């Protein structure tokens, strides 16, 4: 972004921001705060078509009439939305020159995860990603291969330019900007994210996005992902980086929209490990995410698998709207909170078509002074004959000072529906730990053994290589939670 764009921006945003943009050093940074001009700036910077700008502005207008939800069991400082950067949040700190300058604790974590040195450097921001990982060319190679089958996998910004019809047709069709406060904010200001299109009859030959581990790094704050699976197609999508990045951005408000058409299946796996804050609850990411899949076609299927270990505050309910007859929704979740973390997470299963079925397996682990809530909705509409749901919510407590809550909502409007709900709460006791130790198993290994046993049902739904890293991550998240 150079001098060429400058005059244009000044024109667009008016005099008010003139000084902000003529500053030579930070030419690419919008000032703090949110208003229509900032949104115009984002849209212009990204070279977006008029309809998208209008959509953003409508969202912003609507957002101003909304209030932040307070029903979740979360306590956090009030967010000042005018005190945030919405475009290219500047990182004033100079990048470290070598790994010697990087936080030791962070490096130890990478070590434990078994991340190669080159990749560690990239994650810690020592060198530009391309230089080490050559991700651009890797991405291009893959992309060309996928394109042969008609699969589109690119950033949403590119998709807006190159596949405007698809984006226009589906963007906001699953999560409209009016949906909720955070989704609305995202619609107004989203910066980037991924776009996936699997054409009719194609089975995506690879798990999409392992290499995005690094690529996705700085698109964090307001990500927007759109996945479309046409009739008879299949895709498995992996989100997230498995190495904890010390991203200090306070607020993350992402959206994931998935459209699943006739006989198609989408598997969406997430490992979320944003910075959880320190032991005393200072810092850490506020994670307010709206994820929803619409199973529009008959016999379609969506499966969410998530392992949530990061963020100071998590507000997240990946949902399944089961519109097609015989459509299937699944939600497998492991959420871990330690120290002062808080998570209010669960799912929504909306049964609309006939003979739809859903399954919820949620495992919550609380340690330290953390607090966790499972909040889930199972809704069966009047025409959803033969709907079937099975929910199982298990909580595991470690120590004396954490909390765990289960809030299942069931709204059934059809008497043929069969809905089952099971919930358990258990605790890792000193007796259990001593028993393990008495058999030679160290305390931390004992905790990890017990926790992994507890999560097994969910972990087996993760793709293999992801599952191994996720298991390691769970152990790291719980370090120091005993003794």
């Amino acid at each position, binding site marked *: 972004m150079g001098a060429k764009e400058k005059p244009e921006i000044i024109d667009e945003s008016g005099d008010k921001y003139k000084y902000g943009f003529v500053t030579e050093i930070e030419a690419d940074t919008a000032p703090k705060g949110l208003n229509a001009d900032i949104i115009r700036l984002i849209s212009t910077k990204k070279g977006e078509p008029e309809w998208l700008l209008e959509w953003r502005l409508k969202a912003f207008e609507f957002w101003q009439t909304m209030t932040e939800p307070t029903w979740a069991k979360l306590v956090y400082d009030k967010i000042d939305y005018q005190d945030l950067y919405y475009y290219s949040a500047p990182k004033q700190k100079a990048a470290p020159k070598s790994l010697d300058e990087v936080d030791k604790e962070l490096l130890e974590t990478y070590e434990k995860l078994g991340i190669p040195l080159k990749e560690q450097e990239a994650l810690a921001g020592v060198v530009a990603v391309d230089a080490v990982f050559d991700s651009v060319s890797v991405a291009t190679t893959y992309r060309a291969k996928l394109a042969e089958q008609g699969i589109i996998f690119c950033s949403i910004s590119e998709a807006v330019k190159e596949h405007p019809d698809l984006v226009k047709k589906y963007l906001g069709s699953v999560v409209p900007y009016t949906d909720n406060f955070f989704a609305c904010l995202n619609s107004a200001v989203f910066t980037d994210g991924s776009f996936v299109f699997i054409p009719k009859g194609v089975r995506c030959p690879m798990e999409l996005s392992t290499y995005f581990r690094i690529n996705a790094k700085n698109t964090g704050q307001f990500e927007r992902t759109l996945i479309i699976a046409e009739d008879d197609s299949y895709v498995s999508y992996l989100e997230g980086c498995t190495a904890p990045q010390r991203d200090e951005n306070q607020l993350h408000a992402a959206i994931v929209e998935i459209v699943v058409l006739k006989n198609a299946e989408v598997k969406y796996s997430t490992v979320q490990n944003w910075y959880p804050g320190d032991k005393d609850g200072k810092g850490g990411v506020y994670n307010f995410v709206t994820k929803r899949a619409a199973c529009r076609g008959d016999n379609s299927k969506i499966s969410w698998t998530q392992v949530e270990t990061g963020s100071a505050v998590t507000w997240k309910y990946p949902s399944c709207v089961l519109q097609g007859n015989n459509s299937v929704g699944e939600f497998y979740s492991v959420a871990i909170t330690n120290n002062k973390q808080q998570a209010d997470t669960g799912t929504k299963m909306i049964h609309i078509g006939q003979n739809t079925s859903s399954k919820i397996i949620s495992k919550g682990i609380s340690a330290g002074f953390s607090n966790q809530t499972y909040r889930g909705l199972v809704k069966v509409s009047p025409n959803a004959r033969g709907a079937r749901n099975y929910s199982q919510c298990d909580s595991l407590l470690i120590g004396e000072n954490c909390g765990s809550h289960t809030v299942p909502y069931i709204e059934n409007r059809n008497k043929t529906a069969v809905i089952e709900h099971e919930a358990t709460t*258990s605790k890792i*006791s*000193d*007796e*259990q730990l*001593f*028993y*393990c*130790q*008495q*058999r*030679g*198993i*160290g*305390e931390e*290994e004992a905790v990890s*053994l*017990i926790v992994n*046993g*507890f999560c*097994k049902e969910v972990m087996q739904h993760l793709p293999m290589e992801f599952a191994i890293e996720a298991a390691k991550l769970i152990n790291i998240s719980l370090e120091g939670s005993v003794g």
Partner: protein
Amino acid sequence: MKIPLLEIEDLYARVGDKEIIKGFNLTINEGEVHAVMGPNGAGKSTLSYVLTGKPGYEIISGSVKFKGKDLLAMSPEERAREGVFLIMQYPVEIPGVPTSTFLKHSVNAVRKHHHLPELDTMEFIKLLREEGKKLGIDNEMLKRPVNVGFSGGEKKRMETFQMSILKPDFAILDEADSGLDIDALKVVADGVNALRNEKRSMLVITHYQRLLNYIVPDFVHVFADGHIVKSGDKNLALELEEKGYAEFVREK
């Protein structure tokens, strides 16, 4: 030539503010089986927890040497890896963790401590099968989570099984007969007896003489008020059975 395995000298220990072990002395040589008998509340279980390092049991003074090393300076897991095994009175349940997985972690933790390579899955399964046969522990039972839903007898059988897998140098049996009918007791006793040899030592803690009919000790000690008040051979146990503890408690 007798080689001492465990040497307890003038041991004092407490739980919270309460002093429970008071001037306890005992030396157990290699290959010996000692029984410690005493009335309820004498601190018998405390003794087993002090020796295995359970948190909450505080040493006031005294020393315990195991193979000449300072046992009290070791963490609970180090003691286990060095070869101290406790058959617990009430083995705890660990939901979600299959018994075989648990045992694999246990065996390999001990092997690692002794600089032995970890057992691979095939070797491990073979070991489980061999030892399982003797105690009637089948594959189905090993798939179940540790002690979850086990009957009292199954739990004690499983404890004995774990002991036969780990082959510790020193085993403490804490009220190993509690909650067992006579058939279950025999199975456990047979398992324990099968492990007796000239190197391995045992400390059998019990309230009743009954168990000692099956696991015959070399020495019997009467434990009251935090220490040993009388020692003898197996006949002392029979004497206790007849006369009760009252007399020995009064003797001090």
